[in-house]
């Protein structure tokens, strides 16, 4: 088995999920955290889309019977998930801007404001 055969859609989806998880754990900027969350979401979408994909399948449109249809269920689920994902991103960015405006926070930092800060 060649090493390039390991690069399939499911494996890349799992790797994207963990890249996003790593960014969520280590990055201190709030915007970066929201971006990591959307990368995690994209990994899950890719995993779902490719989980039942066979080579040479056609999109499930029309009545063409010479080739097999691809599974339409994950597509229908993921369309709704993408629209919900933009809602999550919008809520996150709105709360981030609200915190920035009200408390001046842009980082998840524990060190600041410990002793004698007047800001």
């Amino acid at each position, binding site marked *: 088995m060649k090493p390039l055969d390991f690069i399939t859609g499911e494996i890349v989806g799992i790797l994207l999920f963990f890249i996003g998880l790593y960014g969520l754990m280590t990055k201190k900027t709030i915007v970066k955290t929201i971006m990591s969350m959307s990368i995690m979401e994209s990994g899950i979408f890719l995993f779902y889309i490719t989980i039942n994909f066979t080579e040479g399948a056609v999109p499930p*449109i029309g009545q063409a019977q010479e080739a097999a249809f691809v599974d339409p269920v994950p597509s229908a689920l993921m*369309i709704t998930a993408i629209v919900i994902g933009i*809602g999550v991103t919008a809520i996150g960015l*709105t709360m981030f*801007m609200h915190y920035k405006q*009200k408390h001046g926070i842009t980082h998840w930092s524990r060190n600041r404001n410990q002793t004698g800060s007047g800001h």
Partner: protein
Amino acid sequence: MAQTSRIFHAVRILFAVLGAAVVLFLFLNHSEQLDTPLMDYFTDDFLGQTGAQNSVAAIYLNYRVFDTLFEALMLMVSVMEVINVSWANKHAEQYRFEKDDFNRKNNSEIVIRMVGIIYPFVLLIGLYIIINGHVSPGGGFQGGAVLATALITRYLVYPNFDLDLHVLEKLEKFLFLSIVMTPVLYVFMQLQPADTTLTNQIYLVAMNSLIGMKVFSGLSIIFYRFVFYEGR
């Protein structure tokens, strides 16, 4: 302090790598073959049963219409959350956008001219995606998002606040009610004049248009709230 933070950093890297390794190991050593009864049922005769030529549209508008209802609910909840957070410590009327004189110097001439050329085509392709959602790739969600993008390009050229957001908010709530009522009456209670392909297609086009308008108004409200009420 720096020592402990470095240890924490190493622990986080280790956690991510270990998690990826465990999940990949489980995934690669998993050999259970599952049947796909849902896929067989949904791709068997969707044109005859629902009148849609696009199986995905048949699923989210007829077979699994509950998904669409709760997705619309989620979008409305996120719009309400954005409005609520941006109102948290101020009155709405106080933060009306002051009308500036239209200043052409701040905007790039290239962007203005190109957006003027592209704008009608973006609107056209959005409407096309909505109307033809049941026979080709597309549908309400995608077309609504494209229409909202057209409104955002308008913001790039003319960044003034002359939209009445209250009308859009009321429209969104009314559209949500319609989106809930139409499948309940048509699919669940079977209150249809005749069970032919024509009535099914009329139902699909109507639902796609409603969802498209709902997504368009929801995303536009989020964006304009975002731009004009926050951080000023």
